[in-house]
């Protein structure tokens, strides 16, 4: 462990510089954290709400804790919904996905594109996270993530959610910003929120 200690320098007293450094670093980190929190809170507060069908699996992250992996009906984008040009070569791509409310109340894919999609009344455009695209004639659906695939729960509660029958009972209300960033607003079991989700 001794390599972790700061010994090699004959340490001059840093004087006021140390305090300026401490305050600068703490201020910077406060700023970063405040920006992160507000940017996410704004989406929850002002975004367009959509309802998505989900199914859970139950792993755990070392830093963020126990969570439920959510797999959505809209995670596989059928190629027949694609409009506009497709990229020729393989590479990193993002998909714009237009969601529309279906008869059962959940939102489904109406249209998708590798370019951008214009805003349209009664629909919400969601941006996928970047993914590795390989053109192939045999692909029937493109698998994408939207950054809303994890729902973090208090320790020990993931199993309880997992035991909810997968068929149709679990859903997510998500909030989508104008730029297409989605964020989980609440987790619904039989149509009722499982946890309170304050903005902050």
């Amino acid at each position, binding site marked *: *462990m*001794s*390599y*972790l*200690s*700061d*010994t*090699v*320098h*004959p*340490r001059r*007293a*840093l*004087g006021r510089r*140390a*305090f300026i*450094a*401490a*305050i*600068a*670093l*703490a201020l*910077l*980190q*406060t700023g*970063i*954290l405040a920006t*992160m*929190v507000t940017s*996410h*809170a704004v989406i*929850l507060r002002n975004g367009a709400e959509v309802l998505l069908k989900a199914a859970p699996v139950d792993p755990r*992250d*070392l*830093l*963020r*804790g*126990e*969570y439920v992996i959510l797999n959505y009906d809209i995670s596989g984008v059928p190629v027949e919904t694609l409009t506009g040009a497709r990229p020729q070569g393989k*590479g*990193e791509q993002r998909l714009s996905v237009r969601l529309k409310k279906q008869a059962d109340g959940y939102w489904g894919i109406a249209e998708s594109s590798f370019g951008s999609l214009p805003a349209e009344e009664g629909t919400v455009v969601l941006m996928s*996270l*970047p993914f*590795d695209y390989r053109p192939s004639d045999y692909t029937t659906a493109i698998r994408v*993530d939207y*950054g*809303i*695939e*994890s*729902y*973090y*729960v*208090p*320790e020990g509660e993931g199993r309880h959610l997992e035991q909810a029958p997968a068929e149709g009972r679990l859903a997510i209300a998500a909030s989508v910003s104008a730029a297409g960033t989605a*964020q*989980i607003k609440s987790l619904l079991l039989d149509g009722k929120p499982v946890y309170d989700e*304050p903005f*902050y």
Partner: protein
Amino acid sequence: MRPAGQGEEMYRGRLQRDIEIWVGKGLLEKGQASAMLADYDSRPASFSLGRVLAVLAALLVAAAILLLVASNWEAIPRLVRAIGCLVLIWAFYLSGAAFANRDQPQLATAMLLLATLSFGAAVSLVAQMYHLSGDEMTMVLLWFGLACLSAALFRSGSQVVVAGFLAWLYFGLYLEAHVSDWIGWAPYAPPIMAALVLALIYYTGAGRARHLVYLLVIGWLTWIYSLNQGLGMAVLYTAIGLAAFLTVSLPLPPLAGLLRTAGAAPAFYTFLVVAIGLLMLHVEIISGPRLVALGVVTLAISVGAIGIRGRDNGAVRYLAYLVFAAEMLFLASETLGSIIGTSGFFLVSGLLVAVVAWLVIRLERRFAGSRKPEMAA
């Protein structure tokens, strides 16, 4: 630069033994001997149990904070947890600055460690609050950047070590997601991060953090090879390794000054790249006259490395012996295995190992011999 930590304690013991031997042979006066030991003991000790324990305590407390966030404990409201993290960050940085000024570097180190790790806890908490996923690499990048900044502002070696580990975490997260693909800009990050951390190592003097960086770069290079396996790539890998090894081994003016403080490590790690390259070549070339040529080249490279750096760099010397011996045995098994039976093969291998041992002993004796006239001079 003095060796730190455990090595230092061992050096004190060796020094004392050697001095006793020299006194016994009449090379040193008793008074001179005790004066030399007293001088050594009067230097500021770089190993202190207190400092190590302070760092260990800081790591344990930081782990507790990180895991408290991860537990998502409902007894503490979310907002209280978030504000708590911010308060911790401020408190740890300010007390770190205070301890640094009061000439208590051990406590300052511990506080800065806690501050930087608390930022990681705060970032994880935000991700947990808003159920974010797929953003882990961006978060680690941000964390790495702040650790570097903190290392530069406080000139703190421990922060450089944290940055080194975060660089590994970043590369690890990338490999976890796309181990067999080169996607976007993230794959360029490891060498850039390594360069940044190396610059901070020179600035702060955190010598041992170097190994983190060298291993990161070697891991990255090996990963690139795994993406583009092939003869050309293996040749390129070996050639680049050789060029780097020669660059750090031959005392060229602009680099020599920088490398003097880096010790034995650069030559060892660049030669390790050469050894990995040779291993890849052996995966690519499996038979025929090219294999014989490769065998000869491998043996020549290992002997050459011993010739260039063998005398003053034990790590390079032993790696070169290993390459040399492994190549001899490999060649033996390739050419003889198909001709005679297993029992005969073991007999031949035994004799070959004896030949290798004889060669190595001769080489070692030659170095011992060439060292003597220098001592006399």
